[in-house]
């Protein structure tokens, strides 16, 4: 079940500089949204707050399953997933990297194997499952990061510039994977990107434009 996210008057200040300023928006369950804006406009901060990676200085985010407001905590955090620009691979195999989110949830090993293989197949890394993850190329690392968040089937998927610094071939692969997620799963998808074509493909043109932490259009 996808979640609805209702952000109310979010504000965040870093070293005296406001990076998010009175941001309010309702992300409907199952919807796909693109967050745009120049570098430093607050896109990443917004995603990190929505993913419960850091708290806002002001304001609040409500997470709703239907009409029920979910309490903050580990259970809620496990229903969300955020792919950061720096994937942060673990020094182990590709397989173990993808299995991590399932293992910390205590998923039985037989199910882990099946789900990890399925996720690796989806991102085209099946043949590298025994390879050490830190030896992957940047494009493969990004796909590994995607597999790692997809395998846990989050109800809210947040992607922070998932195609940044990728070559055209890897960019196309990642775009297709995200498109498939959007089409096949009941996931609320929120993607920070600079690419207008991606906004059309992923979010059907539904974009939020941030400038210096303020929501200009949405």
């Amino acid at each position: 079940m996808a979640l609805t996210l209702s952000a109310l008057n979010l504000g965040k200040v870093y070293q005296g500089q406001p990076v998010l300023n009175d941001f309010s928006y309702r992300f409907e369950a199952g919807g796909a949204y693109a967050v745009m804006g120049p570098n430093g406009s607050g896109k990443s901060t917004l995603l990190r707050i929505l993913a419960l990676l850091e708290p806002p200085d002001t304001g609040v985010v409500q997470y709703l399953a239907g009409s029920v407001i979910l309490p903050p905590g580990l259970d809620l955090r496990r229903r969300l997933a955020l792919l950061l620009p720096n994937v942060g691979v673990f020094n182990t195999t590709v397989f173990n990297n993808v299995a991590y989110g399932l293992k910390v949830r205590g998923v039985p090993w037989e199910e882990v194997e099946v789900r990890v293989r399925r996720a690796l197949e989806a991102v085209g890394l099946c043949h590298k499952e025994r390879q050490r993850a830190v030896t992957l190329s940047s494009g493969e690392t990004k796909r590994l990061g995607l597999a790692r968040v997809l395998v846990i089937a989050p109800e809210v998927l947040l992607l922070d510039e998932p195609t940044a610094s990728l070559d055209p071939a890897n960019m196309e692969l990642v775009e297709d994977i995200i498109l498939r997620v959007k089409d096949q799963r009941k996931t609320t998808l929120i993607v920070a990107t600079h690419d207008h074509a991606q906004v059309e493909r992923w979010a059907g043109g539904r974009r939020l434009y941030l400038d210096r932490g303020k929501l200009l259009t949405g």
Partner: protein
Amino acid sequence: MDSIIQGFSQAFWLIVSGDRELCRIILLSLGVSGGALALAALLGLPVAALTGLKRFPLRGAVVSLLQTGMGLPPVVVGLLLYMLLSRQGPLGFLELLYTPGAMILAQTILALPIVASLAGAAIMGVDPAVKQAAVTLGATPRQQSFTVIREAGYGIMAAIIAAAGRVMAEVGAVLMVGGNIAGYTRVMTTTIALETDKGNFELAIALGVILLALSLVISLLLRVVQQWGKTEAALIPWP
């Protein structure tokens, strides 16, 4: 020159014949250093985890203190421990002075800051993105900590090996609190010092050769661990 050559040839025979006294000294040295290293790891690794993972008041002061402790002069440690453990000292009732226990304690004090400081630095050096990834993938705070510590695994191993090098070569502190009693507290380094004073070079040279070989093994081990951390085979078992 002749006495040096003669010393080396006699030392060679002591080693190949497996001289009883030589073996006893080596075994005691390994026992004392091994015990000290185990204790230093047991006490130092939680400190390393604390300084590496948590932010708390005076954390910087604790890290600085540990770094200073890495250069503790062994004779000062020996002196302080001697005063604490002597009959008139506050810990005199333990009756540890001039026992292998006192030597283990002295070497633990020398090894502890090395283990805690270097292992703490290894944990602090883990890419913050790794912890963030663990958080975003749903790990509990304890699982996040384990993940970060596992990423620092090779650095932690290197810290323990570096401490091993320090305690194996140490002489001042163990001499002061161990007393260099034959067959009881006499270890490789103190024997070398004593036998050299007496002009008995063969045993001193034999132990010197073995000590050098052990130092070589320790530094090779350190190198292997550092290289191993970069290879395919180095994957730390994942639960």
